[in-house]
């Protein structure tokens, strides 16, 4: 499980936790998140995301 950070706003997506309230189950890998998903904090589209891979 990895963590990814949005370089625009600092939002961290933790694959282990997911975003259950957004319909993304715990354990969902970054590559499996739908393409039309957007950063819940700043609205950057997934396609525009420049995630920084954080050490797990």
């Amino acid at each position: 499980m990895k963590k990814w950070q949005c370089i625009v706003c600092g939002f961290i997506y933790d694959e282990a936790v997911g975003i259950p309230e957004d319909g993304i189950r715990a354990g969902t890998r970054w590559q499996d998140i739908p393409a039309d998903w957007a950063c819940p904090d700043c609205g950057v589209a997934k396609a525009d995301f420049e995630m920084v891979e954080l050490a797990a």
Partner: protein
Amino acid sequence: MSHIVILGTGLAGYTLAREIRKRNRDVTLTLITHDDGVFYSKPMLSTAQATGKTAQTLRNTEVAAMREELAAEILTHTQVIAIDRDGKRLQLADGQSRPYDKLVLAVGAQPIRVPLQGDAAESVLSVNNLEDYARFEARLAGVKRVALLGAGLIGCEFANDLIKSGRQVDVFDLAPQPLGRLLPEAAAHHLREALAAAGVRFHLGESISAVERAPAGLALTTTQCDTLEADLVLSAVGLRSDTTLAAQAGLAVNRGIVVNEYLQTDDESIYALGDCAEVCGAVLPYVMPIMNGARVLAANLLGEPQALKYPPMPVLVKTSLCPVVVCPPPAAGGWQEEVSDTGVLSRHHNAAGQLDGFALVGAATAQRAALLKEMQG
């Protein structure tokens, strides 16, 4: 093909440049900045202590890599002193000038400074960019006691960050509650209690009138004539759009540079985006309006006009001790607040009874997605 020039390489300037390049790789693009042009995340400045980031590690992408990514010319350490609208040229401080076909002002905002008395008034810092943060970080080394002026979004985030990094934190604001412009009463009360429980001392209805040097640190005098010692004072009382260049050029300015729903000023070749812009009457110095604005403006600059229509845009306050999400309603007052031990869920409805804003504090922030869905109908 026209030559687009963007003044400013903050989040607005760089986001716009990225959006332009997604649509078009050929248009000539120049960005001009008075700083070194590094790309960094501004929202991370007020959470850096607790997340272990430094002014150095916050440097996300250096200017050389930005030039390559954006296929753009980026002029750093360059001051633009005037806009020649008839000749469509920018006058630079070094005596040179630069042409543009379309100009975007993404020059941001300046921290508001409250007038202070005392021989150490000049030592009061503000943090509005990475350079400011580097100065703050250098001064913070070894410091135990920090006084914050302002309990707005930035003030609360810094209070959260500094208390978590083990410092003594005193927060002053003339308003009766933190986040006075964003939160209804019960929501603000919950945030205040949560930060106070972590050790933050709020001095509400009170500000600082003087800062003087003391044998060990600084002596502050409050507007209630109390005294308090601190080692460092950080001012976060708000931002004022930078309209200087626009006003000198005769463009319409109000609280910000006045633009329409196409982000266009009253000069059809000049646009504004971000903290400097007043879009259809509103200055919204947050991340989401920049993201939405940049997409539309890129299309407009490339000759595919689109009017900006904001979706509901929640504002996040990164107070990790007590998270806050606010979707400000169009009108003040009339909140319905549900208070529990773990948080506050505040709803705002319009005259037709539809949800048109919300404020979530603490555990209630988990309801954000559901409430956004309800607002979008």
